[in-house]
């Protein structure tokens, strides 16, 4: 028969109280922190899942932030390219007007407007955003297009585009090579935007001193070149718009993935508050019962019956 002594009873009671205190503290910690796992040993398996999802979230956040910056840069590039295309449209209108004009004064005015438009195009080609040249490729620090004293515009940027991260697949240029944007090739002939406008201006200025057929041939050639340059810019705009679309698509995909990971992480690490509160209540009640029963046990003693 097991003998029960006062000391043993108190020892067992203290041991139970200690355990209940631990449970009580743990439930209280979960309720107050909102986390089910407050240290690795609380639930290593859940922590493993939680950490895996945390890393995914961090990776997605970093990539999304990078995409946001890329989006901003590429939006500016696309916008600048669209503007360049608008300028070219106006140049073509001037070319058409100049071809039909017989008034030297009008041609002079048109030639002056061409100069302004060419300056505008050079300015667009040297556009910067966030401190980097949009059309310089990897040489993003200086001006990618330099104007010589004779007015010739030369591309001095990098021959290598700055490529976006792998999110957008291979070849998505964040910073395109300016030469590829403002030049096109007809067979083995290079058509340069700035040279074409300079030639067109020269044609306008020299129209009075040349035969009509020579002038018309030059206008026709300029118009043809402008057409090709316009189409080429449209292609560039199309490529940039596609890159932007890819970025937006990636942003949406990352956002969905992030939400999914956040849900999984929450399931693994976050406290189920109603459950934690019930556990807290249970631990409290258990502690009260333990102390009440101990008190009850010591109420009945032979001491109380000895005279």
């Amino acid at each position: 028969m097991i003998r029960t002594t006062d000391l043993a009873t108190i020892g067992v009671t203290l041991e139970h109280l200690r355990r209940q205190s631990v449970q009580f503290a743990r439930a209280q910690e979960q309720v107050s922190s909102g986390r089910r796992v407050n240290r690795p040993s609380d639930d290593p398996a859940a922590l493993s899942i939680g950490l895996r999802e945390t890393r995914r979230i961090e990776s997605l956040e970093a990539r999304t932030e990078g995409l946001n910056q890329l989006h901003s840069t590429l939006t500016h590039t696309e916008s600048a390219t669209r503007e360049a295309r608008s300028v070219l449209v106006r140049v073509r209108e001037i070319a058409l007007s100049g071809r039909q004009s017989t008034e030297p004064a009008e041609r002079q005015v048109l030639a002056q407007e061409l100069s302004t438009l060419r300056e505008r195009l050079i300015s667009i080609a040297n556009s910067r955003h966030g401190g980097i040249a949009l059309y310089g490729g990897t040489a993003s620090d200086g001006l990618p297009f330099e104007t010589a004293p004779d007015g010739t515009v030369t591309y001095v940027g990098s021959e290598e585009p700055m490529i976006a991260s792998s999110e957008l697949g291979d070849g998505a240029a964040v910073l395109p090579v300016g030469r590829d944007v403002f030049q096109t090739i007809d067979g083995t002939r290079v058509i340069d935007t700035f040279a074409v406008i300079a030639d067109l201006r020269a044609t306008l200025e020299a129209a009075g001193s040349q035969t009509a057929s020579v002038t018309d041939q030059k206008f026709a050639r300029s118009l043809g070149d402008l057409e090709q340059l316009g189409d080429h810019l449209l292609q560039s705009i199309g490529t940039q718009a596609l890159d932007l679309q890819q970025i937006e698509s990636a942003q949406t995909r990352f956002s969905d993935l992030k939400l999914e990971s956040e849900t999984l992480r929450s399931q693994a690490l976050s406290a189920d508050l109603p459950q934690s509160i019930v556990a807290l209540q249970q631990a409290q009640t258990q502690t009260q019962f333990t102390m009440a029963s101990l008190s009850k046990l010591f109420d009945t003693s032979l001491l109380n019956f000895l005279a």
Partner: protein
Amino acid sequence: MISFNSSLTALRAAQIGLRVAANNQANAATPGYHRQRLQLGERASTAINGVAVGTGVNSLRVDRSASTFTQYSLNQSISQQGAQEASLETLRSVEGVFDPISGGLTDRVSQFFHQLDQWTVNPGDLTQRRAVLQAARQMTGAFNQAADRLNTIQSSVHQEIQGTLDKVKGLIHQIAELNGEISSSRGGGQEPLDLLDRRDALLERLAEHTDTHFPFRADVDDVVTLASGAVSFSTQPIALVMSTNSKGEREITWQGGSTPLEFASGRLAGLLQGGTNRIDAARAQLDSITRSLAGAVDRMQAAGVGLSGPFKQLTGVRAVTAVDAPLNKSTGKWPLSAGQVTVAVTEAASGERRLFSIDVDPARDTLEDIANKLSGISQVSATVDPRTRQLSLATAPGFAVDFAGGLPTVITRTPGSTGTATGHVSGRPTGTINGEWTLTVTQGGRVGVDADVRADVRDASGTLLGTLQLGSSYLPGKPIVIAQGVELQFDAGTLVTGETSTWDVVPHPDEVGLLPALGIRSFFQGDSAGNLAVRDDLSDDPRELAAGTTARPGDNSIAKRLAALRDSGLPKLQGQSAIVALDGLTVEVGAETAAASWSVDQATALSTSLRQQRDSVSGVDLNEELANMLTYQRMFQAASKFLKAADENLQELMTLVR
């Protein structure tokens, strides 16, 4: 008169019984106290008129209620519990070092990669470069802090071992002394109950600190054995000594012995084995992760150039242990493999960049050999400082070097070629093998003019990579993609059928792992978690941070590879990324802590149960003692009454005599 004697023995027994009960009550709360019992025996009867009549009661002895088996089991359990508690305490401390919930190391590593990600978008931006360096400094600081905390925990464990050993020595002294006293008492014919209680209590305390074996038998000498029976003592205490072995580990030996004692249980076992082993393992894992991450970052950084371009002078920040020892022995922490290291030499005036490779066999080559090989490259001189055991490189005036590999700026034509068209290669090799590629003109003519001008390009193994059409459909000067990221262009001129040109294609400039091992153009200095730091010269000048393989500010080729390390598996980490390996270490320590906590709970429950069993035999039940008190009180009263009755009977007889 027999009646008087009988009553007298009863009165004496009752008095002793009351004293025993009183003593039990007084010690009801005394730790280690075993309740005592008065053993009574019937006295021999005597024959009165042929009738055997009892003569009273004998108070034989007072003995202890003790269960030796339970006490032995309890000591074993306490010893196991002590080991597991000590182990758990250490694990909880180690767990705190890697706790990701409160931030710390993993957060810092993640933040570093976050900044690298941002850097890829604007690699030339100095503010972003500073942000990368700041994040790197915070990350290395977190590694240093983690290593420091592990060291602090280790120091605490060592202090704890010393403190526990001091307690053990004190207990051994006290037990040996008690053994002597118990032996003397027994020699005098007395069972020293109080001394036995005190010794049991001391043995229980000793068991908490070390594995302890004691026979608990009266017929066996009082010999206590410790450390799996390796040492024992009885009345003469033994001296235990702590020392540090050649590996820096703490050992305990007994004075006179040379073999380290192995403790199977008790706090000493938990501290010596569970505690220090876990700390050593955690430190080794942390160092391995540190080196893998730093090595990968350094390797990529070395393969790039800063915004200032190639370098005129370079000095390694990692020293070898001996300049004349093979590299695989002198750079032990940075494993190397045999292969080639490619050095690119650029002439500033012409911009011409040439590639030179040196063969490195780490099993044979010393640092001095490497310096000699590098010095064999035109315009490069390498020296080894015998004092610092570090390698330095310098170039001749007008030249600079880099380790970006890739492609040379010009291709080498067959001597005697009469073609006039000049070829240039460009691009970024993406292949897996370094080697020489060869272009062979299969149909000569004027580049960009004649209808059919063709050339084949083959790699080092002779595999045809592509046939280039360089005739009238080709615009001279326009790059043509060959394969694996390599492009070729020809200026206007002629190509002659059969002529060949060659050039090196080097996607992997450091096949050996030499540059991170020697700290040349590395990102970090130091080789373990405790001493990892961002290179001072990088901290001073963020422009020197290599975002690409060229000095162009928009070149993000290296930055992208660095950022991709966040998710890239590293060979030395079993294919895990550094951050996943850190998480793995966290989970591993957490799982061990949880398991240890469970073990402590189990051991505590077992000890509690055994203590309950022990107390059910040895403990004092006040109700029981009060009942005994009543029994002896009644016995005393009855014996007194009997004496009174016997006395009255005798008085009656006396009356008759008178």
